[in-house]
């Protein structure tokens, strides 16, 4: 059921290439009887210069997919490329460098080092690498994110939204090939969340960055160019030019499919996969992501 995502299928303009791709990507936890497949032979291409959202219920494997694409975790089988580099098979040290130099990260919470001020947090990956930041670009990013007068503040002195903006700036600062955002709005109120999503959108449109965002929230996903739907460790669908309503509609639909017994194929995800959390009871766009717990695959 895995679906290769091709440019043609998205109906969007021809992208500038592929930022990352995975083939037959499989991740299993445990062994023998208790083996749980978090990802089941997934093929995926992440288009360069696009904003891709990954959706799915808890345990669907969306965070695992992100971790594997970002070189944070090791695959059980399959291959992952970042640009032309095959990252499956890279050593730990090379992976660390790859993350540092070529990937930007935003997490749901605890994004910043509490002892460093905003500016120091923003330039941290480059400092670690011993590289000088591109001043002009850095200024541009800081301006765009409206952080100019917050640079000397420590994270504890910033609001949640400001903290996520600093994290966003950090992800952008080194002009990485790919930015991964793991539930970046999960801990924010709706206004701050919208703001952060706006910045991610701008990063793609104005700064020509590539962003992959994992989210529960159809409203958040609506900011993306393309939404990938994951369930039971597989990509079950994709939706170009999503709106909050269409995403919510789609989620409901495949949730219903899932609820139909008997299954054509039993779910292979984690135990809680079957739950109807994430959609049922979703009265509106902003409330859709009721499962506000961070997804910890």
């Amino acid at each position, binding site marked *: 059921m895995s679906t290769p995502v091709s440019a043609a299928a998205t109906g969007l303009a021809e992208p500038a290439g592929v930022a990352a791709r995975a083939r037959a990507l499989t991740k299993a936890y445990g062994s023998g009887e208790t083996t749980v497949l978090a990802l089941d032979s997934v093929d995926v291409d992440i288009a360069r210069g696009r904003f891709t959202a990954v959706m799915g219920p808890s345990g669907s494997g969306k965070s695992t997919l992100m971790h594997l694409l970002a070189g944070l975790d090791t695959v059980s089988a399959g291959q992952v490329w970042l640009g032309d580099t095959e990252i499956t098979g890279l050593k730990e040290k090379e992976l*660390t460098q790859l993350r*540092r130099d070529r990937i930007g*990260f935003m*997490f749901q919470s605890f994004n910043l*080092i509490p*002892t460093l001020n905003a500016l120091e947090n923003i330039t*941290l990956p480059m*400092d*670690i690498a011993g590289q000088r930041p591109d001043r002009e670009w850095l200024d541009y990013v800081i301006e765009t994110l409206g952080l100019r007068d917050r640079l000397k503040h420590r994270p504890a002195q910033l609001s949640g939204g400001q903290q996520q903006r600093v994290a966003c700036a950090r992800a952008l600062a080194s002009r990485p090939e790919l930015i991964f955002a793991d539930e970046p709005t999960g801990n924010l109120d709706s206004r701050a969340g919208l703001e952060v999503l706006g910045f991610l959108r701008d990063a793609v449109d104005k700064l020509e960055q590539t962003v992959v965002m994992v989210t529960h929230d159809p409203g958040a996903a609506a900011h993306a160019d393309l939404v990938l739907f994951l369930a039971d460790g597989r990509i079950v669908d994709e939706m170009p030019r999503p709106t909050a309503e269409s995403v919510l509609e789609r989620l409901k639909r495949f949730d219903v499919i899932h609820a139909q017994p008997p299954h054509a194929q039993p779910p292979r995800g984690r135990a809680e996969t079957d739950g109807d959390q994430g959609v049922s009871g979703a009265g509106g766009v902003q409330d859709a992501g009721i499962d506000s717990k961070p997804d910890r695959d």
Partner: protein
Amino acid sequence: MLKATLRSFLAHKGRLLLSALAVILSVAFVAGSLIFSDTVARTFDRLFASTSADVTVEPKEDLEEAVPSGQTPTLPARLAGRVATIDGVARSRVDAAVENITVVDSENEPVGSTTGAPTVATNWYANDRSPVELTSGHAPRGEDQALLDKDTADKKDVEIGDTLTVLAAPGSFKVEVVGIVTFTTTNPGAALVYLDTPTAQRELLGSRKVATGISVDADPGVSDTELKRRLADELGSGYDLKTADEQADSAASELGGFLDVIKYVMLGFAGIAVLVGIFLIVNTFSMLIAQRTRELGLLRALGADRRQVRRSVLTEAVLLGVAGSTVGLAAGIGLAAGLIELMSLFGMNLKSTEMVIGWATPVVSYVVGVGVTFVAAYLPARRAAHVSPMAALADAEIAGVGRPLRIRAAFGAVVGAAGAAALVGCATAEKTSSAASLLGIGLVLTLIATVIAGPLLVRPVIRVLGGAFPAVFGSVGRMSQRNALRNPRRTGATAAALMVGLALVSGMAVASASMTKSFDEQIDKTLGADFVVQNSNFLPFAREITEKVRDTDGAGLVVRQRFAPVKVSMPDGKSVETTAAGYDPRLDDVARVTYVTGGTSRALAPGRIAMQRDFAQDHEVRTGSKLPVEFPGGRKTELTVGALTDQPGAEGFGVEGGLFLGMATIEEFVPGGQDSALYVNAAPGTDADTLRDRLEKTLDPYPQVQVRDQADYKELIREQIAVMLYLVYALLGLAIIIAVLGVVNTLALSVVERTREIGLLRAIGLARRQLRRMIRLESVVIAVFGALLGLVLGLVWGVAAQQVLALQGMTAFAIPWTTVIAVLVGSVLVGLAAALLPALRASRMNVLAAIAHE
């Protein structure tokens, strides 16, 4: 609640491990020292009780010998005959035993112990009370036969038929070993030579008419105390009479001096371990509570009151204390067994199977172990009790970080000011005794103040210390500096553990460097002789050596130095017991003495005495004062003060008063004394090197003494001072081990606390190597901070201590810069070592698990 406490204790047992180790170390040293001293005391009590005669008659010991005079007190041998006639006496026999001898083999190598245990020569008699039995050969008969104990014979490869030379006070003599004796009880470590009784009297004491004591055995039915009473009635008060029990006690207490040193050293270790351990435990509990703020808040929200929370934390502490004390007690038994084994290296054959564990040992162990943990956990427990129920809900900032340090600052300032005042008082005091007690008070108060104020100093000092880190190590350096600054209390307490040890050491190092320098200067100033001949332990040596040195070709002037205990009745009505030095008349040619009034000739003239000016003033003595003086053996005379000196007190071995007099006076009133030093000048026409060669050749058969020129003499003094330092360094070693445990502990718990942060850093590309470096740098900065505090405090102490020494005449001040630099470099190494495991652990963390960590 108890169930929750137990669960929590077990859940955190890994994190309590290092605290437990601190408790274990403290208790082990306490228990070990108690067991060891009990075992030794029991062993020797038994030995002396079984080997002492029913009653012993000895010469009256009237004056304590602070500095050995070399004289052996004797009584008339015919007393034995008189005693034998007393009703109730079964047997009486003369004892002729001396400890101030040296025995050498045919190659002039000493046969006795070289580690300070005595070499004893005594008269042989076989009976059931002898501590030895003849196991091979035969009893000594005649003047050239002797027995040697088996332990010594084995150690030095002496066999029956070998010839030994005994160097005794009256002269040296050769003996053939005709038998070997074996200890039937514990060998206290001495080398034993047995001679037949007439030979012992003549060769060791100089006359067959004298003895060192009379051993008396009672008839059946006559008790020891009854016999003693009868002897006292008959002999009067001119002798010391001791029953077997009293003799055993006094013998044991003589040996006890040496054993007490070991005991106090051990207790010193225990003290350091306790002191440093407290910091470790305080830190551990503070951190555990900080990490469990939410859990404690939940307990409070569920209805636990403050008292219950506090009690729960304290119960955990008591559990830790009990567990640590139990293991520590076991470790203490091991330590005592190790010490007992170690003692056998010094020739003292104790048996670890006869180990004595008195009731006090476990009691004291548990009191120390549990007490220390309880006290150390008390403040953290109070803090835990103040966690609000809201903490369960809030994503609370770690408790204690943000709280102001104002109370601490005020308290620290008050205590510090009091301590500083005491130290200033000590520096300006004029009496040694008051200065010393002020020094003690000042040390304790300034130490407490530094511990209290430590967290306040963290920010300013570490800002400077780690100031270069961001420039040198980039963001890794910046983060490690800020991590060290993150929780000043924690950093302060961790560094305090290191500080205590280093303050002690640097204080002692300053004091000893100042002492060494003072002695050097004084030797330069006062020692005018080409050579000094003396024993490296400053013990008196056989008179024969003096003769041989005088007869050496090329030796010019020889001035003898000899000590004698004296009791002087002062004009102010006080009676002072001290030691006086006697010199030959031409003292000016070998030493430079500065006089306030009079001069050497008037000081050393017959019937005269000289003393130090300040001492004289204190006791209203003037030149020309006539002082009644009592020498050992009840010999009394009156001496006129001929001169007052301006010598600092360090002269004459720091003996009170700096009294000295003519050698003739000492020879008259302390017959049979031995010289402690010979000052030798080369004869005209002989150069010093030639004389040295010849003196060394002359002294070849006398390994107990050496020839030293000024430089050698300084070296000897330095070595004496260094011995004191070795002990301090050993204490330091232990303090550092525990302090390192403390740093490891803090880092390990901090790493756990910062798991998510570390995960984030790893995710955004911090290499494992960089992460390890970050933790290492933090560790180094904490260690150097502790070392710096310790050094500064120690230097202040050293300056104050030097002022006390100055009152003793040691006026020079020196800072041992090599030690200071070594301590700083060492602290960097300590920091690196302490970071090894925590850094490894942090770098091994799974990135994803770390990010997801709560």
